[in-house]
């Protein structure tokens, strides 16, 4: 059957990268432009091998800058598009992330993180791009970022990333890491009718009345496909409803204020966190991506020792669940944050706990993320702390 060849419904043994491509195809993505980089290369390969079956377009561009530029262009012709890269490529994409935000272009950028800085180790997992994804492009903007921790989540979150990008008309980053991208696990692909697809919000009205940035009640302007005779004008300059550049303070407010608030007003809808045994917890492990795989393990082992530990997994990292962390900080004794970097999201946890709970950072930057011992020792150590230290406690072995 034709539809079944597009969505591979069933149970498969897939790597994270492969699952990501299947998710993209399932949600209707038909365009990939990219530049090969480890460890994201398998996404491009898989997409290329699947492209002809689903009538998708694939192009290998000359660099990551043009990859994202071409992606934004293709999205305006009516396609859903994706690009995949790693840290060095994400650095090059930054200027176009800003353009994507300003033109309110829905697209998905997969960043399979490796360790840095600079070239680092291409085949070693890292989580050093989390802050870059949030703040990397110049000027003020809000972004949505998701962080999968298994191939199944690579599949599910890719679908959600596309849906969020269409719903909020913004680029969405899928912040995976080498561990999740390369590990092979069982991935269940549900039947076509069970996959939720957010449709593009198209303008339906007379052609000459179309205003590309006229916002509806939900803050989201309506899109058209170019080439349909809408005499479309759009610019990265501060613009008005018509997409014409107007450079004054009123228009800056009129244009940029909704770009920020179309996300901030809907954080409850966007934020997705998974809480486990948090009700009676004294210590909460806050994790995302590959380290959340050992968080549950550490939680179980600690509970065997009589320490009440809960787990809070960030499925969406940006926007950050500020309210929930602040709320928990008043109840729990400490947050333990394992990350494969030298401390990024732990800063957010500390900011949001306002000194009401201890914040312990466990770095997995140089260690194997399978090793649960460090996390467990940090938990054992922090339970002994009598008073609240108003700084991040770094755990060293």
């Amino acid at each position, binding site marked *: 059957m034709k539809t079944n060849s597009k969505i591979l419904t069933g149970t498969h043994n897939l790597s994270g990268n492969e699952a990501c491509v299947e998710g993209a195809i399932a949600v209707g993505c038909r365009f990939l432009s990219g530049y090969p980089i480890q460890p994201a290369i398998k996404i491009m390969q898989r997409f290329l091998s699947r492209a002809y079956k689903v009538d998708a*377009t694939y192009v290998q561009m000359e660099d990551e800058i043009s990859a994202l530029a071409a992606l934004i262009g293709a999205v305006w*012709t009516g396609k859903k598009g994706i690009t995949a890269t790693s840290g060095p490529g994400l650095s090059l994409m930054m200027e176009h992330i800003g353009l994507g935000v300003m033109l309110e272009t829905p697209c998905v950028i997969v960043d399979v993180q490796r360790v840095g800085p600079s070239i680092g180790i291409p085949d070693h997992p890292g989580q050093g791009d989390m802050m870059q994804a949030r703040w990397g492009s110049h000027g003020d903007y809000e972004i949505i970022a998701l962080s999968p921790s298994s191939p199944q989540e690579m599949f599910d979150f890719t679908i959600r990333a596309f849906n969020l990008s269409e719903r909020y008309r913004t680029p969405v980053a899928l912040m995976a890491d080498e561990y999740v991208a390369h590990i092979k696990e069982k991935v269940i692909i549900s039947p076509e009718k069970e996959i939720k697809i957010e449709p593009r919000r198209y303008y339906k009205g007379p052609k000459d009345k179309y205003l590309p940035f006229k916002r509806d009640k939900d803050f989201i302007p309506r899109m058209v*496909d170019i*080439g349909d005779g809408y*005499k479309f*004008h759009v*610019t990265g*300059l501060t613009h008005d409803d018509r997409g014409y550049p107007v450079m004054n303070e009123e228009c800056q407010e009129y244009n940029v204020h909704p770009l920020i608030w179309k996300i901030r007003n809907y954080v409850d809808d966007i934020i997705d966190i998974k809480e486990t045994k948090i009700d009676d917890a004294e210590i909460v492990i806050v994790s995302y991506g590959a380290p959340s795989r050992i968080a549950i393990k550490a939680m179980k082992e600690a509970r065997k020792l009589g320490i009440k530990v809960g787990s809070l997994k960030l499925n969406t990292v940006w926007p950050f669940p500020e309210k929930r962390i602040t709320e928990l900080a008043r109840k729990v004794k400490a947050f333990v944050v394992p990350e494969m970097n030298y401390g990024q999201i732990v800063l957010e946890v500390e900011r949001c706990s306002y000194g009401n709970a201890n914040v312990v950072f466990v770095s997995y930057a140089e260690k194997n993320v399978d090793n649960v011992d460090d996390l467990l020792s940090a938990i054992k150590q922090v339970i002994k702390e009598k008073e609240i230290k108003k700084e991040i406690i770094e755990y060293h072995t």
Partner: protein
Amino acid sequence: MNPIITAFAKGIKKSGIKPSRISVPSDIPFEPEIVNQLGIDFFHTIRGRAIAFGTGLKLGNPDLIVVPFIGDLMTIGGNHFVHSGRRNMDLLVICVNNFLYREINGKSAPIQKHENEQITTQKFSPYSTFEKPFNATHLANSCGAVYTARWTALHTDELADSIAEALNKRGFSMIEVLSPGPNYYTGIKKIESDLLKFYYENSVIKNGESPRNVTINSDEKIVVGKFTEKEQLTFIEQYNLQLGKVLGSKFTPHGGRNG
């Protein structure tokens, strides 16, 4: 109205292509009302990246005719230009060369020879230039462009003809337009007329001249004309051909005017 835009409008009319099929990604802002009058779709993107953006538009919808208008072509957009030529991506690049930003074509002859002190000393650089200018036409030709031409803002009719011709040409085409840069010179009427006079006195039409010999330099006359015209498979045609060869009947070719 800007003579280049006038020529573009005339070119679209002559080519017989419906304006709604034409999309212009650009790194220079257009007057929005002009875009509206032309009836095209317009994207003002990031400096130098219009070709990359246009590649996405073309591949997203092969029916579109994509015409990147570029200022920063040879510096920040150099790599995109070279690779689009290599792929023979079906784009018509219009390079607006006004010598204001020296790297576009080097700080080349017209400016150096210009007598107006105000421009040469204050607005450009006080020490003049010592870098060699870029021969963009020669570069385009050696990257595999199927159509190259150069005109000045004085040659509006020839420019319109060239644009009409290139719009109907499949493959990577480039038209270089030497222009006095209306945004920059607005209000300095004398300079505008001086530069046009300069073009009038210093350009010579040589159609079919080898692109190798059309470098703009200070001692010689500026050569304008149509330099290259050839046939070559475009990116989408090559893509369809190659995948069709490997996959056979399983492959459905991409559509548009190339498929």
